[in-house]
């Protein structure tokens, strides 16, 4: 068995607000193997985003251990964490988080700007175009986000998450701002991506239908994992009944 991408043991996250302590995570233990497609569900305020921030090295644990690709990241400096985010993690957000008035290509290039050693501009552009091509957006390379649909914007964001060839993609409610159909398209894109590259995906959602795309579904409540089960029957990609067939 290969080494787990994620290895968490009894992770706690406590926010201190004056005298008040908010226990956002109360002891999460979790191992995720390479190539898994994990969906995390839970009610609002259950700690999903908090968990995702820790998984994404954006935040530190208050207690417990967290290893990413077999490396303990709990004591790394801000700069080292930034490098890990840059090289090993691709983020996809609910709000797309694309830079406005900036072309799709330039948006996809952003992670490459922060890569060390430096990547020459020509190479950056090539990589960005390749990532867009994988997302089927070659013809939208020079479009600004305002000229793209929500689904296209999210696919640009996925291209951006992929461009530095990370081992892990973290998506926080990626379909939250999309209608059902477009959300399904995006999920399908992620499924295909996992199929073709074997990349590990962790996806947060509160919609059961979206969670059902995962190969493993974890639910959390009040900062604790309440269920963690393999999903043996991921939904058959809904090549939704052709509209033409409807009379």
């Amino acid at each position: 068995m290969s080494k787990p991408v994620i290895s968490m043991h009894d992770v706690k996250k406590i926010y201190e607000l004056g005298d008040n302590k908010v226990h956002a995570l109360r002891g999460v233990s979790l191992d995720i193997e390479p190539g898994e497609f994990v969906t995390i569900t839970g009610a609002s305020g259950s700690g999903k985003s908090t968990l995702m921030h820790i998984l994404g090295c954006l935040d530190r644990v208050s207690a417990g251990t967290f290893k990413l690709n077999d490396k303990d990241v709990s004591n790394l400096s801000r700069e080292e964490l930034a490098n890990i985010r840059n090289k090993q993690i691709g983020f996809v957000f609910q709000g797309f988080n694309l830079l406005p008035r900036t072309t799709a290509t330039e948006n996809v290039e952003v992670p490459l700007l922060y890569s060390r050693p430096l990547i020459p501009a020509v190479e950056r552009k090539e990589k960005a175009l390749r990532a867009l091509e994988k997302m089927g957006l070659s013809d939208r390379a020079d479009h600004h986000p305002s000229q793209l649909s929500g689904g296209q914007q999210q696919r640009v964001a996925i291209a951006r998450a992929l461009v530095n060839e990370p081992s892990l993609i973290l998506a926080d409610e990626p379909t939250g701002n999309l209608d059902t159909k477009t959300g399904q398209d995006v999920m399908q894109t992620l499924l295909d991506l996992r199929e073709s590259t074997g990349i590990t995906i962790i996806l947060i959602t509160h919609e059961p239908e979206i969670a059902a795309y995962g190969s493993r579904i974890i639910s959390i409540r009040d900062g604790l994992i309440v269920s963690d089960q393999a999903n043996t029957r991921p939904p058959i990609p809904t090549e939704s009944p052709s509209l033409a067939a409807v009379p």
Partner: protein
Amino acid sequence: MLTNLQLALKSLTQNRLQASLTLCGMSIGVAMVVVVSGLGLGAQQQIETQIESAGPTLITVRSGNFRPLGIAMAGQQDSSGGELAEGFAGEAGYGDQSFEENAAMLAARQRATKPKVSKVRSPAWPLRPDEMTLLSQNIGDVRATAGSVSGNITLDPAPTNPVRIAKVYGFQPAWPEMKGWQLIEGRLLTEREHAQAASLTVIPVEVAARYWPGESALEKSFALGGDTYEIVGVVRTGEDMTNSLIVPTIFIPLQQAQDLLDQHTFDEINVRSASVGKTTEVATNIRAALRNLRELPDDTMDDFRVETQSLNAMPSLGTDPRLARAVHANIIEFEQASWEEMATSLRQAGRTFTYLLSSAAAVSLLVGGIGVMNIMLVSVTARTREIGLRMALGARMKDVLAQFMVEAITLAALGGLAGLVLGAIGLYIAQNVLHWTTAVSPVMLLIAIVMAAATGVIFGFGPARRAASLDPVVALKAE
């Protein structure tokens, strides 16, 4: 770096209105610096030229040690008599000079066929050619020297001669400038004519008016020493010539005069020091060098005089002429000291003026800087989410810091460039419309640009650091 610059330009074009307002503020600040430094420098330069032009750079070395205006330091006067008597045993002192001259003239008239030299000499050792060489070549910071010698001479018997006796006054090329001669008519002698000892002469305007009233003296001539000296120029010497009209003074090349008078020495040598500040030093050096050359013992007074030119200069700067005269008649150190005090206070005034203006400019640059800070703070606040995103995508603190610093500096530098242009226009107006004296130094322009960039650095750092130290999670949640 390049990408940061591109990013900065992009973000500035995205906030066009704000950016251009900030640019305005910045450029006014820099323009103020440029204009003010131009005006301040202009004022200082004007003061410098005033000091230079009016200030004593002329040093007059005369043989003998009498004081022409009679206000001499006690002791100095006394010693001169004894000293002279020693040096010129049997010869008369200064007081007898005019008598001695007249006697010589009478003697000369009796032998009118040949030019004869009046036997009167300076009541001290005249200045010798080797002393001239010393002054012109061996003393530092000397810009020019010019010597003169004069004496009465009997003219050749020619009908064109208006008089029978004239005072020939040999001079060197730099002499007219040093003496402040004003050309009234014709021209002066060229260096070449001086070198070739041409038979040409320049006469004082008083002489021209006396002997050729109502007509031009040019092309008239004096016959002496077997040559005809054509008058090529008429000058106003600035000296009182009324007493020398009976025996008119005529200026001829030094070489000619020395030959005619058979006196290969100088009555007076004028020395132009390289600058006002050097005058005292040069004068002191000349005095020491001459004493040394003449082997004067320490307890002996000078048998020559070294004086600086302040009689003319001081009144032009508003000093009471009586004071100037008193100063002039006194010792060189006092003269020079009071001069330098005046120059110092003038310079001080110029500097104070510049400082005053500069502080006004500094304030407006500060205002520009605050503008930069303001737009940067707004920019950081408005783009908190972008900062969070960049951090999530791998931007380190220093990347974020650099991004915002480059943006602030770009803004400030663009403002600086615009300010340079604005300042140049301002200076142009000051110079050509208001007729103020201005001066532009490339160093000041560089300083203005550097100051603008520094403003960007100083006022951009706070906001940039604030951006860089944002918590990525918090920044990502921002709206």
